[in-house]
C-alpha cells in the first residue's frame, strides 16, 4: 500500500517537473535555429521547424510531447542528426553512472572513516586534521582539483592515463575528482552526528558492559550516527551518477553531464526535457529507495501511508 501510494506520487511529481520545465524552457528567448538563422534560407528553417513540430502552438506541442513521453520516447535531438535523445542518454549514462557509483562508494567509506576519527578525537589534533581535510575538500572546486590530479597522477607519475574513456585505469582520476566534494560533506555530517551519538546514554550502557571502544563504536555507534546522514546521501547520489559537466569535460569522458549544459545553450528542446526528466526520475527514485532504506536502518520508522 505504501509503495503504491509512493509510486503514484512519484509519477505526479515527475509530471509537474516536466510541465514546469516545458513552460520555463519555452519562455527563454531564442530557438534551436537562431544561431544558424542568418546562413539558412527561410524556406529551410521553416521546413525544419515543421519537422520538430515547432510551428505548432505551444499547447499542441505540449500534448504531442506528452504523447511521445507516454511511450518513453524523448523524441529526436535537434543538434545531433544521427541519434535521438533516448540513445544520447542511454550511451552517456553508462560512463557517468560508473564514475558516479565509484565516487559515491569512495566518498561514503572514506567520509565515514574521517568523520568517525574526528568525532572520537573531539577537539584534539586528529579532529582538527580531518576537518581541515574536509574543508579543503569542500572548498577546492573540481576544475582546479581535476587538472592537479592529471598533472601529478598522470603526467608526472606516468602510471595513470591522462584522460579519455576505456579501461578501469581511466576511471581512477575522475573518480577521485568526483569523490572529494561529497567525501568532505559526508565527513562533516558524520562527525557531528557521531559526536551526538557518543554522548548518548546507550553508549554508556555499552561501555558499562566492558566492551572495547572499537566494538562499541562499530556496533552501537555507526548505525545510529548514520541515520541523519542517509537523508542527504540520496540527492548527492542522484546528482553524481547523472554526470557532472566539469569533470567529464576535463577528463574527456563520454558521459551525459555535458548535455545538461549544452542543450540549454543550443535550445535543443527535446534534450533539455529529456535530461531534466531523466535526472528527476533518478532523484525521485533515489529518494524513494532512501526512505525504504530507513526502514532497515532505523527500526522506529514504520512504513505507513500517513492516513492509516
Amino acid at each position, binding site marked *: 500500500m505504501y509503495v503504491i501510494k509512493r509510486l503514484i506520487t512519484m509519477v505526479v511529481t515527475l509530471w509537474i517537473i516536466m510541465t514546469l520545465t516545458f513552460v520555463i524552457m519555452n519562455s527563454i528567448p531564442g530557438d534551436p535555429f537562431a544561431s544558424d538563422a542568418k546562413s539558412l534560407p527561410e524556406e529551410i528553417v521553416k521546413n525544419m521547424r515543421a519537422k520538430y513540430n515547432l510551428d505548432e502552438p505551444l499547447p499542441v506541442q505540449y500534448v504531442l510531447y506528452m504523447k511521445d513521453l507516454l511511450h518513453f520516447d524523448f523524441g529526436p535531438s535537434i543538434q545531433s542528426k544521427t541519434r535521438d535523445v533516448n540513445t544520447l542518454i542511454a550511451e552517456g549514462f553508462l560512463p557517468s553512472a560508473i564514475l558516479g557509483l565509484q565516487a559515491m562508494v569512495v566518498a561514503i567509506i572514506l567520509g565515514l572513516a574521517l568523520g568517525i576519527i574526528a568525532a572520537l578525537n573531539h577537539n584534539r589534533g586528529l579532529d582538527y586534521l580531518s576537518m581541515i581535510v574536509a574543508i579543503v575538500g569542500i572548498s577546492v572546486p573540481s576544475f582546479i582539483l581535476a587538472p592537479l590530479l592529471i598533472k601529478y597522477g598522470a603526467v608526472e607519475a606516468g602510471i595513470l592515463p591522462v584522460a579519455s574513456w576505456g579501461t578501469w585505469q581511466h576511471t581512477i582520476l575522475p573518480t577521485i575528482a568526483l569523490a572529494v566534494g561529497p567525501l568532505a560533506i559526508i565527513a562533516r555530517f558524520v562527525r557531528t552526528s557521531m559526536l551526538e551519538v557518543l554522548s548518548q546514554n546507550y553508549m554508556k550502557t555499552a561501555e558499562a558492559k566492558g566492551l572495547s571502544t572499537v566494538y562499541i563504536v562499530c*556496533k552501537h555507534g555507526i548505525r545510529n550516527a548514520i541515520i541523519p546522514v542517509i537523508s542527504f546521501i540520496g540527492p548527492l547520489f542522484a546528482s553524481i551518477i547523472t554526470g557532472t559537466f566539469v569533470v567529464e569535460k576535463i577528463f574527456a569522458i563520454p558521459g551525459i553531464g555535458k548535455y545538461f549544459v549544452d542543450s540549454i545553450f543550443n535550445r535543443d528542446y527535446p534534450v533539455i526535457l529529456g535530461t531534466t526528466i531523466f535526472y528527476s526520475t533518478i532523484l525521485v527514485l533515489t529518494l524513494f529507495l532512501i526512505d525504504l532504506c530507513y526502514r532497515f536502518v532505523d527500526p522506529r520508522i514504520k512504513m505507513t501511508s500517513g492516513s492509516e
Partner: protein
Amino acid sequence: MRVLEIDNLHVSFKTRGGEIHAVRGVDLHVEDGETLAIVGESGCGKSVTAQSIMGMIPKPHGRIKGGSIKFRDHEMTTLSSKKLREIRGTEIGMIFQDPMTSLNPTMKIGHQIDEIFIKKLKLSRDEAKKKTIKLLQEVGIADPTTRYSDYSHQFSGGMRQRVVIAIALAANPSLLIADEPTTALDVTIQAQILELLKRIQLERQTSIVLITHDLGVVAELADRVSVMYAGIVVESGTVHDLFESPKHPYTWGLLKSVPNIHSQEKERLMAIEGTPPDLFDPPMGCPFAQRCPYAMEVCIEYLPEKEFFSESHSARCWLQDKRAKGYSEIAAGGERHG
C-alpha cells in the same frame, strides 16, 4: 568480606571556569550481599562516586585525584583500562537512571544482552541466545522468545528498565551499581522494579550500591546508608540508625522534607533553605554550615572529623563533638519537637 572499599576518594573535573571538586574525600564500604544506599541531592557527587567505581569518569576532563577504590582484590584507581574493561560488565554491573535512553534504539533487545555472553564470556551464539531468553524471563519479561527480537521502542519504561537490569545481571556480577534506578519511572512501576531488585539480591546474593535521592527507596531496599553533601559523606549508618537517630542537621533536614502519610494532623512539609555550596571553590569548613540552622563559628572554619556513635553509625558534625555537648542537646531537642 568486603566487596568494595572506598577510602578518601577525590575526583575533580576541569572546566573552562576552573576545577570542580565533585568528590572530596569519600569513605564508604559495601559488605558481601548487602545494599548500601548513597543519598543526597543533585550535584552532591553521588553519581560521580559511582562512575569512579566503574572507572567511567568522563575523560579527559574528569580525574581521580586521590584516595583508593578497592574492589575485591583490585585497586581500581591504578588498574589499566584493559583490566578495568575486563571487570566492567562481568564483575560489576551497572543500572542507569533513564531507561528511555539507556538502550540502543537500533539494536534488538536480545542482542544488547547476548553481546555480553558472546564478547565477554565467549559463549556461542546459540548458548548466548538461550541464556538471554532465560534472563529476560527472570527479570519478568513475558514471552521472552518473541521479545528477544524486539527493539526498545516496543517496550514500556518499566519493561525497558527490566531489560537494563538484565544487561547488568548478565554476567552474574558480585556488585551491582544502581544509579537512580527508579527515578524516571511511575510510582507503581517503581515498586515493581524495587521488588525485582530485592528478589535478585535474595537469589543471587549480589551486593548493591544504590544511588538515590528518594528516602522511600532507601527504606525499602537498603541495609546501610551514606548521606552525601557537597562531595563528602556527612553521615553514615544502618537504615535503622539513620531513620531513628539521625545525627547530622542535613539528615534531619532530609527526613523532614519527606511527607508523612501516617500523620493525622496537617503538617507543613519542610524544605532545607538555601542551595549547596559552589564546588569550584568549596568551603574550608563544613559545607552545610551556610544552610545549617545550628551552625557555630567553628563550622565555617574547620571541617569536622568523623565521629562514631556505634560501630556502624558515624557523622561529621561539630554538634557531635564533646566540646559542643550542651549546644548539641539543645539543637537535637529543638529538632525533635520543632
